[in-house]
Structures are given as structure tokens and as C-alpha cells.
């Protein structure tokens, strides 16, 4: 038995550590290589990027300058498209939170008749493969006259994010003691006051997790954005990146630079809210 603070050198520990490293190093390389490769392109002049070097001879920030100054015809609408991504992700986050919180409160706290059925319907949507739902949804958005309108993408992403959001929020609401609501009713609180003053503050950690989830989902979405939006002024940045590929002579170093810039916000958001996300989301994903 090892005493705390007393470090004993033992060959057994060294062997364990070595075995762990034998797993850890490949895991690190496997995870980082595509990301590093993207970064490498972003800091390489075109000649270096295409030469297969693992580090450029002349690392440069020139690619970032081209992107930020929009000095390539592929990047004409960089800021507009970036802004579209921001607006759509923020709208999806906000709308999902409003719709899902209201539904979860209604099902879990108010025990609305038929609530259980609505939850099952929502779960059913959660289990429709996303690319399968995209096919009829594309046509429906056309019927509604929403194609090429950012609302089509916002509503589509809210449809996809809500079921999981309702599910996770309902699980979290069920854990709040029912006595809280009863005490508030005794004090003469109306339903809306309970919602605003008792329910929302207690649900804050789950709301942060769900809001982050919806924002990341919308920010990272490619398929629905690519189907539903098409004008250069309306598309989000991933769609613009996909359109790069249509050209024969794609400026890959700029594609990777733009992609790298696009990948930074979600990574930052994820790390900022990681504590909420891991607990809040994995608990709801699969009940073991």
C-alpha cells in the first residue's frame, strides 16, 4: 500500500505508465493530425502547403490577411457569411431554449394532459436520421415559400435541436422537488411567476448546456444550410467553404484558413461551457 506523499520508485508503475503512453500517443496523433494539417495550411504560403512539409519553411499570417481583407473572389462575402452564421446560430439557440423550456415546464411541472405523448413524439423526431428528414423538409420549405430565407434554416435547426432539448430539460425538471412549486402556490404565486421566479433560476445549468448545444449544432451544420440557402449573400460560411470545391483551381490554403477561423468559435464556446455540457448532455443522451 502506498502512503500519500511517499513516492516509491517501482518498475511496475513504470511499465503501467509506458503501456498508457503506448495508447495515449496514438490517440493524440489520431485526434490532432487533421486539425494540425488545417492549421499548417493556414500558416503556409501556397508553395509550402503543396509540398507536403510537416512545418513550412516560411510560416506566415499572410493567408489570414487575405481572408480578413477579403482579397480573393471566393472571399468577397466573408464577413456577410460569417455574420449569417452568427445570426442563425444565435437565433437557433434562443428559439430552441424558449420552445424547449416552455415545453419541459409544461410537461414536467404542470403535468399537462397529453404531455407524455408529446414527449414521445419529440423523441421520435430525435431518432429520425438527420439526412433523411432533410429530403422532405427541403420540399416543405419550398411549399412554405421559405427557401433561400434564413428563417428556413433557423426553423429547420430548431426542429432538430428541440426534441433533445426538451428531453434533457424534462429529465432535469423532474429532479426538482415538487414542494418548491407547492410552496410558491401557497404564497399566492401564479403559474407564470413560478416559471419565472422558481423554475428558471433552478434550471440555469441545464439551460446553459442546452443553449450551447443548440448554438454549436447550428454553427456546425452543413447539410441543411447547403440545401436551404443558396444566394452568396444568404449562405453561411460552411456552405461557402463547400462551394470552394466546385472550382478546378481551389485556393486550398485559403479554404483551410477560413475553415480554421470558422472552427475556433465552437471550440472556444465548448471549452467555456464544458463543465455544464458534459454533465447536462451526457446525462440526457443515454439513460443507463
Amino acid at each position, binding site marked *: 500500500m502506498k502512503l500519500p506523499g511517499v513516492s516509491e520508485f517501482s518498475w511496475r508503475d513504470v511499465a503501467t505508465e509506458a503501456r498508457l503512453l503506448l495508447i495515449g500517443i496514438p490517440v493524440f496523433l489520431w485526434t490532432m493530425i487533421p*486539425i494540425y494539417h488545417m492549421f499548417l495550411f493556414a500558416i503556409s504560403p501556397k508553395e509550402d502547403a503543396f509540398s507536403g512539409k510537416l512545418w513550412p519553411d516560411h510560416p506566415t499570417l499572410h493567408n489570414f490577411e487575405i481572408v480578413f481583407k477579403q482579397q480573393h473572389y471566393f472571399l468577397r462575402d466573408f464577413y456577410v457569411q460569417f455574420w449569417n452564421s452568427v445570426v442563425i446560430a444565435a437565433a437557433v439557440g434562443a428559439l430552441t431554449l424558449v420552445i424547449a423550456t416552455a415545453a419541459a415546464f409544461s410537461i414536467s411541472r404542470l403535468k399537462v394532459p397529453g404531455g407524455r405523448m408529446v414527449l414521445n413524439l419529440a423523441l421520435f423526431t430525435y431518432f429520425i*436520421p438527420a439526412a433523411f428528414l432533410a429530403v422532405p423538409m427541403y420540399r416543405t420549405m419550398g411549399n412554405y415559400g421559405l427557401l433561400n430565407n434564413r428563417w428556413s434554416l433557423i426553423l429547420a435547426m430548431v426542429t432538430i435541436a428541440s426534441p433533445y432539448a426538451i428531453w434533457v430539460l424534462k429529465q432535469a425538471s423532474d429532479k426538482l422537488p415538487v414542494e418548491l412549486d407547492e410552496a410558491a402556490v401557497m404564497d399566492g404565486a401564479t403559474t407564470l411567476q413560478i416559471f419565472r421566479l422558481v423554475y428558471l433560476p433552478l434550471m440555469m445549468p441545464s439551460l446553459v448546456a442546452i443553449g450551447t448545444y443548440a448554438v454549436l449544432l447550428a454553427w456546425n451544420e452543413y447539410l441543411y444550410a447547403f440545401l436551404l440557402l443558396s444566394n452568396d449573400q444568404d449562405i453561411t460560411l460552411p456552405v461557402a467553404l463547400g462551394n470552394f470545391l466546385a472550382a478546378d483551381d481551389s485556393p486550398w490554403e485559403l479554404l483551410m484558413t477560413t475553415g480554421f477561423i470558422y472552427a475556433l468559435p465552437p471550440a472556444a464556446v465548448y471549452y467555456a461551457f464544458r463543465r455544464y455540457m458534459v454533465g447536462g448532455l451526457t446525462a440526457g443522451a443515454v439513460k443507463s
Partner: protein
Amino acid sequence: MAITLSGDQSIPAPPLTSRLTTAQVWGIVLLAPYLLVFLAFVVYPVGYGLWLARAPSNYVALYNDPIFARAAVNTLIFLVIGINIKMVIALFLSGFFAQQRTWIKWLSVIFILPWAVPSIPTILSVRFMLNPEWGVINHLIFSFTGDDGPNWLNDPTVALSMAIGVHIWKSLPFWTLILITGRLAIAQDLFEAAEVDGANWWQKFRFITWPSMQTLYITCTLLSMIWTLGDFNSVYLLTGGGPADLTHVLSTLGIRYLRLDQLSLAMASIVCAMPFVLPLVYFMMKRLSR
């Protein structure tokens, strides 16, 4: 006040508001936004899509389209091989990441990245790495062997394997995370007792870890199957369905028909997957709504 005399007329029900409590009225009001979204963007599209796909001629056309048969086989390969490889690795890595070491904790923070960042730049990055002329992989092969490397995305079998690799790269972190949660829920004294009895790691896995995680593992595998069916990016961004439309899976094929303005074929190809998807969905719903 009117008094009804005829016998077949029942007493009118009291007005709705008096039968429902205020809380229930609020319940309905608060539930309404989601119901509207559900009706407008799930029920109507799905119903409309099924109606479009109703003609048997669609299924004859699909049956005669060699790309469809190929896509169906590719989807099966993706599910059976891809998911099992992914889940076994995730199960193994969940044990690795559950170890208490500072550097492993840091590695787990990095390990999440593929899941958190958007698919498009990372998958395109892999696509360029595999480029036969300029890609870094063939550069390395050339500098070590002096031979040209393979044209990775030109052979359908290799290209499909690479797409499966990309899919694993992207979704492995999520499943590992879930399985770590499952592992941490196992009571530690079971392991301590086994240690005292002199059990080796395999016996500990076989008799403690696996029995405790079996249900979670199977649920994750099934859920992963459903989500993999909806994974469009891994194949589309890496191979675009090529070469010669030989690496399509059902999700990219549906979108391909859609882009060719053949919506009924697109829907029909999805309907063909339903006998397979619906039992999975039914099972998942049963498990989750217990």
C-alpha cells in the same frame, strides 16, 4: 336559460375553461410552440414525402438503378463494420480515459475536439491529405519508399474505408465520453475486492466492467446506428459519392436524387431504409421512456 326537453339531447359539457385548471391552460399554451414546430416541420414534411413516394414505379426505378443497390450495400458496410469498430475502440478508450493521471485528463480535453469543431474544414483537411499528388500522406510515402502512394479516393473500397475512418474520427469522442460516464458509475469496491482475490485485468473486465456496461453499450450501438444513417458529411465531403457514384450511402443518395430534382426517388430511397430504422427507433423509445 334554456331547458332542453328532448331525451336524446345530452347535457352540454361545461365550458372548457372551467374543466381545466389555470395551470393546465398554461400547460397547453406553453406546449403549443413546440407542437406547432412539430406539425409544420415534421408531420407535414414526412406525410407529404411519403405521399410523393407512394407510386410503386418509384421502387421499380430504384431497383433498376445500380447506384441504389451499391448505396444500400455501402450503408450496411458502414453500419456493421464502421459502428462496431468505433464502439469497441470507444469502450477500450473509456477505460484508458478513466485512469487518474494529469496528462490523461489533458489528453481527454484535446480528444473532444473532433466532435466540437465543424465537419467541413476538418473533413476537407483529410481530403487534401489523401490527395495523390499534393497530399502529405503520399509525400511521406514517397520520401520513405521512393514509390508513388496509392490514389486513395479513386478506388471505391479504399475511399469507403477512408469515409468510415472520417466518421470514426468525428464521432468517437462522443461515444467514449458516454461510456466513460458508464464506467465511472461502477462501484469501485467491486474492483478492489477483485484485486484482493488476485483477478487480472481481463477477468476484471469480463466479470465486472462488461456486465455493468453491457446494456449501455448496446443502447449506444443502436443509437449510433440511427445517427450514422443520418451522417451525410463523412461521405459527401470526403468522396462526394465518387468515384463513379460507387461510395454513396443512403443519406448521400437521397440528397443526390434531390439535387437531380427527383424528389419521389429521394423519398423512396429513404422509405426503403424504414423497415430497418423503425425497429431501432421503437426499441430506443422503449428504452428511453421507461
